[in-house]
């Protein structure tokens, strides 16, 4: 309570001020405005949350696509690694027993080396590369067709280049590889024909004549008869 030294008029003024009250609906208006402000804040928060979640989903999708196309999930990179490892494994068995052949420029779709189970050649583990189905018939061969073609191609190139001795070395390698398996290669006849030509061009006419006659007996219907006969005739000593 105020001290008695104040004049009565002052006390009256204070009493009047004390009785002054705000409008009766002021509290209701305050609460309504607060609720409206809270609703607006909640709506803004929901909008921000929605956009944040959407941005997060987009970022995750973009990240997944980037990883898929650039990172370790690329199947082409795996296939390239398989092709790269293939020729090295195929040529590995020939290092110990034969002269090393020229490096293959383009291995192409080379089959796995699991078809060369030679005791003279090192066993190359076949776990690094996924095995592929063997081409050709089901019979076991020491040489696969691409390898045969490759060796015969080298022999032909050597003959065309005037080096029958190199052709003979290549064909000897072919023969030794074909002897490893139970049956000769698919291009055995072609290899023998090339060997006959190489023997003749290297001056070994007697050997060429002998092998040509054997060829005619073994392959009477071969399309190579005419070329082999020619060499037989040429190999006849004058």
């Amino acid at each position, binding site marked *: 309570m105020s001290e008695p030294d104040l*004049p009565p008029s002052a006390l009256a003024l204070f009493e*009047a*001020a004390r009785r002054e009250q*705000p409008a009766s609906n002021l509290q209701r208006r305050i609460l309504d405005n607060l609720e409206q*402000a*809270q609703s607006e804040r909640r709506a803004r928060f929901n909008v921000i949350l929605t956009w944040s979640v959407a941005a997060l989903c987009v970022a995750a999708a973009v990240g997944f696509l980037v990883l898929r196309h650039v990172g370790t999930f690329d199947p082409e990179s795996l296939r390239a690694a398989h092709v790269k490892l293939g020729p090295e494994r195929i040529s590995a068995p020939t290092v110990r027993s034969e002269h090393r052949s020229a490096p293959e420029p383009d291995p192409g779709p080379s089959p796995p080396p699991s078809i060369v189970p030679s005791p003279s050649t090192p066993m190359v583990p076949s776990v690094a590369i996924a095995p592929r189905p063997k081409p050709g018939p089901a019979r076991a061969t020491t040489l696969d067709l691409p390898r045969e073609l490759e060796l015969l191609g080298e022999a032909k190139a050597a003959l065309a280049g005037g080096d029958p001795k190199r052709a003979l070395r290549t064909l000897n390698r072919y023969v030794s590889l074909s002897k490893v398996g139970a049956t000769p290669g698919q291009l055995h006849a072609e290899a023998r024909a090339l060997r006959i030509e190489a023997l003749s061009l290297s001056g070994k006419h007697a050997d060429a004549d002998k092998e040509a006659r054997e060829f005619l007996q073994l392959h009477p219907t071969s399309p190579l008869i005419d070329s082999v006969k020619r060499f037989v005739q040429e190999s006849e000593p004058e």
Partner: protein
Amino acid sequence: MNPVVWFAARPMPVAEVTEATDRLTIEALVQRHTAFVWRVLRRLGLSPADADDGVQQVFMVAARNLARIHSENDRAFLYGTAVNIANNTRRSHRRQRALTQAQAAEVEEHHPGPDEALAFRDACDRLDKLLADFPDEQRRVLVLVEIEQLELAEVAQLEGIRRGTAASRLRLARQRLGELLKKAPEQNPFGRPNE
């Protein structure tokens, strides 16, 4: 089951519980302290309309800072906010005399009624005119003690000053009020206007 009963009885998520509790606290603050905050704003020089807006602003601030408010400091928080808002509002009104005239008109607008209420409205108006000449620190202490009838200790807490300082300001304010009333007896609201 009645869907209304089911909805009311369902377990509420944490966010809803927090929101409901906050709203309840705000409601309690509004119910307990609206009149106090409004009167303080009025006596600090705001017109009734400005005081309405000021009260709204005070509770908006309180709603945003609800975590800091508890039962021991709720009035102090609201009072401090009201003082700041009153100062800002008065600074935006440069001509106090025109404001006083506007206050008179608004008082009449807020409290329309029979002639016996005229003395009441006139008394409030004249008190505001007297308080306008006071320094702010003395004015606030005088209002809190004489009008809101708070103890000096609580006044000191609200003002953030020592009790002795509050007592000193109150003494000075009373002296000033007595002198003003003696100088201008015609301003006595309970005298006739021409006295």
